[in-house]
């Protein structure tokens, strides 16, 4: 049920009048439409007033419970550094991993071979992606970089590129199975002793995706789980796939 003018959906979205699938469709549109992103932010400001107007004194005792729970709950990591560039270009709702052209080229390299990448690299003209491209290029060119590829049982394939020397890693995938709007893929580093830390969030895209991962440090494996759309502090579901990372 998509209207001719997706701009009109910003109001329905901000008022939470859309249902799951339409919401998801609209969010996909917003990610690529700066006008709608701005419009949505403004509509949400107006909607927030409606909540403020409904304020009531909150129940006694709730404050203490919430503060105590927060005190023992870890916070989520900030979003991936790779997203910073994207945020500068478009002012939009938190949108995770969709990287620019350079990243796709890097993904092509990991999935399809370096030659294809080098060929395309020559045609790479997008200035804004240059630093990301440089990061990926450095990783792809490092002599010790290992590529660990797996076909994913739930659809698509994923490759981890890791260089112990650079302490740098990236994740490339394509054809991930789309998730409902309230779910997201989350990547995790697993270090010896089963120490798990988040390595970032991943929305399913139909195209190639490339994600700059945080420094792997001592991580021995990368895992992916399905989590609520805001991500989790710790995995709440079993890993769908695990990649064992080569040691130094």
């Amino acid at each position, binding site marked *: 049920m998509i209207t001719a003018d997706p701009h009109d959906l910003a109001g329905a979205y901000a008022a939470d009048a859309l249902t799951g699938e339409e919401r998801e469709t609209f969010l996909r549109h917003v990610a690529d439409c700066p006008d709608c992103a701005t419009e949505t932010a403004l509509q949400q400001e107006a909607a927030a007033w409606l909540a403020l107007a409904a304020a009531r004194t909150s129940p006694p005792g*709730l404050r203490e419970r919430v503060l105590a729970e927060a005190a023992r709950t870890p916070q989520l990591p900030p979003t991936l550094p790779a997203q910073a560039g994207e945020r500068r270009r478009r002012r939009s709702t938190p949108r995770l991993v969709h990287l620019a052209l350079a990243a796709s080229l890097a993904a092509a390299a990991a999935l399809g071979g370096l030659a294809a990448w080098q060929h395309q690299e020559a045609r790479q003209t997008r200035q804004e992606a240059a630093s990301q491209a440089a990061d990926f290029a450095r990783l792809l060119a490092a002599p010790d970089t290992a590529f660990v590829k797996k076909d994913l049982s739930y659809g698509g394939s994923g490759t981890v590129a890791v260089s112990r020397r650079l302490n740098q890693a990236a994740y490339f995938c394509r054809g991930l199975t789309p998730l409902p709007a309230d779910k997201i893929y989350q990547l995790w580093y697993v270090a010896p002793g089963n120490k798990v830390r988040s390595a970032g969030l991943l929305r399913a895209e139909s195209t190639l995706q490339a994600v700059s991962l945080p420094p792997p440090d001592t991580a021995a494996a990368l895992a992916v789980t399905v989590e609520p759309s805001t991500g989790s502090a710790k995995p709440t579901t079993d890993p769908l796939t695990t990649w064992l990372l080569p040691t130094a």
Partner: protein
Amino acid sequence: MAKRQAPGAGHIRTSETDRLLVSVAAGSQDAFARLYDAAAGPIYGIACRVLQDPARAEEVTQEVMLEVWQSAPRYRPESGHAMTWMMTIAHHRAVDSVRTLRRSAERERAVSQHESTLAFDDVVETVEALGEREQVRSCLKELTAELRQPVVLAYYQGLTHTEIAAALSLPLGTVKSRLRRALTRLRHCLGAPP
């Protein structure tokens, strides 16, 4: 209920809530306590209004505040005000919860039809009951009825645009564009929230 105040309404200035949330993002529990004082009232209030169930609203408020704590490191001051960010989370959770309840009772159809009439009468009442923010009430009243009805039904009663279209006998596209126009006018009337 005791005299209602809008906790956080007015006594924390715009940029202050934004700054508080940034401190929360850095892990400050002290800032989180102050942020709770600013946001819990509106969060609980909107949850009560959408859910019509104080106990569920209390649960939702707790979930939302915890999500605010956990997700604070992902808040970007440049992409909107802290208050907007928190109210967006709160409203979405409240609506999600009421829809789940309606569905799980397997009477979605019946409920939405029942509510069509109820909701319709409620629009006026809902607007009148907004005691906390005189300004919001007067801006809502300034809207024409055709713009006010959809936005009140969606925001305060958690109806989907399909349900609103049925309640008001309007085409879907009209509901969508009226929601947008209503919010645009409200924003012009009110400005950015704190």
